[in-house]
């Protein structure tokens, strides 16, 4: 059994949408915190570009679909990726319309497909299970997505 907590990232609360990440099994850091820590040294420029995109989307444009690499998971699970313009670093996320984004982890992409890279594959699969758990919680009305993109209800899910 896994336990996740959806945590709002206050640094991206700028008006156009809300950004959350996930803490797994009572960890005191989120998947996004880990992604930043893992890449700030070797992929600084790419990381800054992704952070700037997140800032611009959460503050001004909303999470417009064309800014993402869509369909990175199974059909309908909302898994997509944000990359730098060269596509060297990718961050997996779940997009709920233009107003809510849940960030997972990611890493540098050096293989042709993410399935060939064990790190990217495991991050992708983890976020798929988060997406499944969230979809179920929304269906059961345990979690509600509000008009401003914020989440209310039980933000800790066990599955």
């Amino acid at each position: 059994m896994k336990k996740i907590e959806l945590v709002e990232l206050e640094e991206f609360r700028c008006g156009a949408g809300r950004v959350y990440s996930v803490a797994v099994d009572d960890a005191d850091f989120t998947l996004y915190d880990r992604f930043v820590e893992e890449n700030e040294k070797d992929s600084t420029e790419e990381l800054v570009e992704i952070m700037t995109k997140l800032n611009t989307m959460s503050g001004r444009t909303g999470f417009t679909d064309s800014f993402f690499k869509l369909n990175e998971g199974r059909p309908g699970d909302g898994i997509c990726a944000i990359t730098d313009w060269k596509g060297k670093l990718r961050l997996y996320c779940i997009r709920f319309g233009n107003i809510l984004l849940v960030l997972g982890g990611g890493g540098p992409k050096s293989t042709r497909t993410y399935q060939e890279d064990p790190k990217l594959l495991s991050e992708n699969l983890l976020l798929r299970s988060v997406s499944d758990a969230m979809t179920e919680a929304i269906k059961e009305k345990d979690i509600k997505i509000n008009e401003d993109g914020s989440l209310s209800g039980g933000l800790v899910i066990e599955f």
Partner: protein
Amino acid sequence: MATADPVKVKRIETRMLVAQMLHDYLGLRDISQQSLAGKMGKQPSEVSKWLSGDHNFTIDTLSDIGYYLDMDFFARKETSLFRCIEEIELSRPGIRAGEFESLRVSQCVFVGNNYTTKKKLERCPA
């Protein structure tokens, strides 16, 4: 973000905002990416790249898009230079166009509540 170069950050933001303008315009006019690509003799993948927020548009490309979509990326927003000080109902008896002569009147005509109105504007303080 401490190590971010503010010039580069501004570039990324600007690319995304231009892409968003184009995205919104296509959505409002119900124009598909394929249709725009067809009009301009481009591949749909190129339009997709424009909308990704990663594309460094040239002035010529923006001009071409503007031509084919009848859109002006560089339209001046009067509201940034002028503020509304009075809204006049032109259809109301006793109001004549001559009363506006000494003031700048915006080109916008607002139609609502059975009145055709013009906004009387003055230049905002610098």
